């Protein structure tokens, strides 16, 4: 009896370790799709696209699936970048991922765009400041550190001015690597605040400025091993900013 249970558990683990994950990222100016099996990326595709997320995503998913040589029936989980990012763009990926997971009847794994940027950096002793352009002079950001080889988010994700973000890195006083399209866009503003104050600081280059589905697949695989996933129905985007109408309403009601 005990033996049988052990075998079942072992089989279940085997299934997860080779689980094929379809990974989708449309939260920023990039659209990317990857299919990975936990150890390897089987196929991936990426493009820069300001507005055409909805036009390209479906065909990109189809292309990547065919390149990977898998059928949709082989997919064990769907991963998606839940933001923060550009509202309309990110919803295209999220709505697609949720629909696919529902039809395939597989779990969905959501990761934030900030988590994806931080994971892409890999092992470092620096503080990683992930900064995504929120437009209107604001950024979405969060700070990360590698502790015992594990990435840890050390501040809650938030939307604020870039100055506020830079000031928070000064607060920690450690060498800092700034990553993301927000960091690059506001590089001068950040430098103005942190130069001569932080022991050392650096900016990741353009290649690492956007979250990608390949890195997301890596995060998703780790979470799948721990069964940190959810049903498609319950996954919600991470906007970090209320709709303008709600902000205005709150301001008007308060005054």
């Amino acid at each position, binding site marked *: 009896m005990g033996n049988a249970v052990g075998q079942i558990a072992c089989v279940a683990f085997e299934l997860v370790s080779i689980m094929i994950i379809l990974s989708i990222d449309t939260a920023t100016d990039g659209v990317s799709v990857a299919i990975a099996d936990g150890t390897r990326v089987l196929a991936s595709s990426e493009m820069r696209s300001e507005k055409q997320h909805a036009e390209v995503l479906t065909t990109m998913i189809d292309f990547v699936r065919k390149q990977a040589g898998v059928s949709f029936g082989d997919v064990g989980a769907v991963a998606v970048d839940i933001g923060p990012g550009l509202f309309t763009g990110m919803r295209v990926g999220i709505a697609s991922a949720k629909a696919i997971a529902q039809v*395939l009847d597989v779990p969905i794994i959501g990761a934030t765009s900030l988590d994806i940027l931080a994971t892409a950096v890999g092992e470092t002793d620096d503080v990683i400041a992930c900064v995504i352009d929120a437009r209107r002079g604001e950024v979405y950001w969060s700070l990360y550190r590698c502790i015992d080889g594990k990435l840890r988010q050390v501040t809650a994700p938030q939307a604020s001015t870039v100055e506020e973000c830079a000031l928070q890195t000064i607060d920690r006083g450690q060498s800092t690597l700034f990553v993301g399209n927000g960091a690059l866009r506001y590089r001068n503003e950040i430098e103005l605040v942190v130069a001569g104050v932080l022991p050392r600081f650096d900016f990741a280059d353009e290649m690492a400025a956007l979250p990608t589905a390949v890195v997301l697949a890596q995060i998703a695989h780790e979470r799948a091993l721990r069964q940190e996933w959810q049903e498609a129905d319950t996954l919600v985007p991470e906007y970090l900013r209320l709709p303008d109408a709600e902000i205005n309403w709150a301001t008007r009601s308060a005054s």
Partner: protein
Amino acid sequence: MLFSESTVILGIETSCDETAAAVVMGGNDVLSSVVATQIDLHARYGGVVPEIASRAHVEAMNVVIRQAISQSGVPIERIDAVAATVGPGLIGALLVGVAAAKSVALVLDKPFIGVNHLEAHLYAALLDDPHVEFPMLVVLVSGGNTLFVEMRGHGDFSVIGQTIDDAAGEAFDKVARFLDLGHPGGPAIDRIALTGNPNAIDFPRAMLHDGLDVSFSGLKTSVINYVRKNPTVSTADVAASFQYAVVDVLAAKARKAAQQIGAKTVALGGGVAANSLLRSTMTTVCAESGWRLVLPSMSMCTDNAAMIASAGWYRLVADGPSSMDMGAMPNLKLT
């Protein structure tokens, strides 16, 4: 694949403030139709807020699709095609439905059909009464549109008259807001007008005698001016007189349009088609002239996905599937 009377279509609608999914067989047989309305979310803003609508669509979409599938009794693998509204509408809202629909179609390896929301409204009336005789005049009156459409056959239509400013539903909403009757304005005015005198105030009937176009912006302004000059006037009388003016114009133009095209059938569509005075007036007009009137049920007047699936079926049969590269077209016209 051949498409026929047994083709089953999943329809998805997210162009404005209703998240809807439906399963329809052969263009007219509604197996399920689920609508999650966001009216409460937008009520305090006095109109639909695009970003709030888009967010609500993402949260409701899966549950609405799940309910539509389960209520239809058709397993999702048995769906033959997926149709979604691609426009006109709010871009962010449309994209949620288009992305979901294309994804469902992709995974099921079935065709996707991009549907014009206005064309779908033409088909809404036919869902309850599919065997109409053409030519048919469709009076499409909603918050976003006021169109007189000549329909010569399936997929063969042209707009022969429209509003040059506000849509009829927009006029209802604006006047209701001014009179503090709440949002949406149509049902609110309809309700209070029952207790008022429609002849109390003689509001203007703009463009009554020119062509088939209409205008409601001046009417709205004269309602506002009248109430400001006569602050003690009965709200019910204002509502009833305003509603009478709108319906009077719509019915007169509908009569003229139907005569012009030699209509056999007249159909109403859109949210304002739920207005009780418009329905009764059009019933009289059509009875006098010998046109058959098709009145959609209340649930088919307002936005729903059954009409999307239905219009999708006719499009699929006529033109085949849409490209998977199709995005949203917020300013799509009825052509």
